[in-house]
């Protein structure tokens, strides 16, 4: 762990660029390496998606960052404060939901927040009302949590994050249990939090939501961060997909194979599905069309499939899942 000292006058706002910074972070459970030498840099003031298949180690990394469990190796810092050395200072400006948010069911939402505010600075108590209002829970704040739906507990969890007036929010699957309207509200709230200058790290399986909400993402698989960067740049590096409806698909496949352009071709009921390497220009698509037409193949439809975060995620994780 880092042992850097942080003087009281240390101005993290100007001197640190990263909201989250990890180097060589490792967490093992016996033989299983849940977090494997993770290098993660989350820039300040953005919405950052943290993606990975089930069991990839997303939640474990979040738990390590928040001091809920200890790391076996590596260094990390939150908002510039080395953790765990200055964990109290770092977490004073962090709000987090880890796994499903659970509270004391026999207390009201407001009373639960009072307990959490008491553990924070005195001003946190004054933020309970505004936080409940912001997540749309003010009208149910005095009901017992035992009567809340899953979505309402999610909202209360976000309110619990907000009472600390956080610079960094770490939200683990915050869309779970939300109805479509709730998801839209949550998306808008995340965007507004980022607009206020806060950093939001969003762990989610809902890739479409992440794509619409986040500026940058990291993909984690088998405990390792395998891709990281702004979504637009990552998608630019994704493979190009073509869907071609034509006559004689098998002969069309042979003709394309003969061009040696490195395409991966699958013949299906709808025709040919072609994956082209990342960086392929549109001239190559035109060349494929020309080869098919000159070969006497009738081309009924040729469609370029736009790469989405989901398709890119599946490409990355399926490649990783392939036997080596």
């Amino acid at each position, binding site marked *: 762990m880092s042992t850097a000292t942080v003087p009281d006058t240390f101005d993290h706002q100007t001197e640190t660029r*990263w909201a989250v910074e990890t180097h060589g972070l490792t967490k093992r459970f016996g033989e299983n390496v849940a977090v494997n030498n993770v290098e993660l840099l989350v820039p300040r003031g953005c919405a950052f998606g943290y993606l990975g298949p089930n069991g990839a180690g997303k939640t474990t990394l979040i738990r390590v960052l928040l001091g809920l469990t200890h790391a076996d190796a590596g260094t990390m810092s939150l908002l510039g404060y080395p953790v765990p050395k200055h964990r109290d200072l770092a977490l*004073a400006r962090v709000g987090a939901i880890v796994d499903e948010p659970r509270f004391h069911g026999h207390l009201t939402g407001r009373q639960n927040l009072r307990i*959490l505010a008491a553990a924070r600075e005195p001003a946190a108590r004054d933020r309970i009302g505004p936080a409940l209002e912001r997540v749309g829970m003010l009208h149910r704040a005095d009901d017992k949590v035992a009567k809340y739906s899953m979505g309402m507990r999610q909202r209360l969890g976000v309110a619990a994050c907000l009472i600390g007036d956080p610079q960094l929010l770490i939200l683990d699957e915050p869309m779970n249990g939300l109805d479509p309207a709730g998801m839209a509200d949550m998306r808008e709230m995340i965007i507004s939090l980022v607009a206020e200058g806060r950093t939001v790290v969003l762990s989610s399986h809902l890739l479409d939501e992440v794509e619409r909400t986040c500026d940058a993402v990291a993909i984690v698989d088998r405990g390792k961060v395998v*891709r990281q960067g702004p979504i637009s740049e990552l998608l630019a590096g994704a493979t190009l997909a073509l869907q071609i409806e034509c006559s004689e698909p098998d002969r069309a496949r042979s003709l394309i194979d003969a061009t040696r352009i490195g395409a991966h071709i699958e013949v299906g009921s709808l025709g040919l599905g072609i994956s082209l390497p990342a960086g392929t220009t549109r001239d190559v698509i035109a060349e494929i069309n020309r080869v098919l037409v000159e070969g006497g193949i009738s081309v009924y439809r040729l469609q370029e499939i736009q790469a989405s975060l989901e398709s890119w995620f599946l490409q990355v994780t399926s490649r990783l899942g392939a036997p080596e």
Partner: protein
Amino acid sequence: MRTPAPAAANLATVPDAAPRDHRGSPIPTGAMIATRLMELRKRRGLMIALIVVNIGIPTVFLVVRLLAHAIAPKSYGPAGGYSIYTGLCSGVLYVFGFIVAATLGCTAGSVDLTEGMFRHLVVTGRSRLALYLARIPAGLAIVVPMVAAGFIIVCSVCVFAAPTRLSYDGTNVPAGLSRSAFGNWAGDHPKLVICNFNFNFGPSSPVPAVVNSIPCGPNGPIVSAPSGSQAGPATVTPAQLKAAAILIALRNYPDYASDFLYPSDSLMIRTGLWIELEAVIGFIVGLGLASLLGQRTVPVILMIVLEIILTPLFSRARIAHLLNLQRSIVGVAMAHLTPGGLPVFGGGGGGPGGGQGNPLLVPESITWAVFVIIAWLVGWTVLGAWRMMTRDA
């Protein structure tokens, strides 16, 4: 792997630095204690159960006795009194107070974990030790008044509904008299005293001569006059009679006082402190044990087994090679601190020495008993806090 550049953020609305609120301090704040108290107090089912056990059971018992005595006083004796007091204090309040406190301690030590709040609290950055220590004053703020309420009810009934007269050596004597009041009463009833009370005076005392002047019926006065003394009928004045009765009464006062029909103030104070100490031990040990195990049910069962089975067993059975182990059980140590006049838990004793020197108990010095109690309080607090500080949330 590419790293995204930091976004140009509008940071104007975000505070510059972490608040300086000593979040890493192990000392819990007043707000933390207050909210923890609220969390425990709002457990309605638990609170009702604890009140029923600690206050309800002795109250119902005493109310039934009060009603029975009011309806049929010749068939049912008074509701209060010394024997009722000692029985309720050492047999009910002492044990139930411990169980109530242990149950609350086990609840306070485990619910954050089992109900998912522990994670939220850890993420605030607050010292885990402070989170643990906040539970102690919060829990004691419930346990101590609850035990006190049960004890006050018992004391009130035992004092105010005690029999008003005591049959002492076959004589009806008002109960609860002070030494001087007892002497005054004897002066007013010299014949009763002289004819019924035991006494033993030396040859120089005028009392035997006075006593022998009083005809006391078929058995006469119980005189233990020394051999060779002049004993025979003589003429005595009422003043001499009164003086002799007072002397006899004052000689008998310690014996009379031990049979008071309601407990003395000092006994009630010592008993109250003793029961509260037992409850505090129950809470602290329960808190530590539940925090250590991370659950409530098993620790509650273990605490009840300790109090109901192990403590009485190890208090009395003298196992040669395990005597020191037996002495290190907190219940055994507490039995040695039983106030004089109360029987030790499980029956027996009740003499002026209380638990100390009680032949029924495994021998143990007061110093060692106090050391054992402190060790249990500190040890379980350290264990519970250590587990809370090292536990994965």
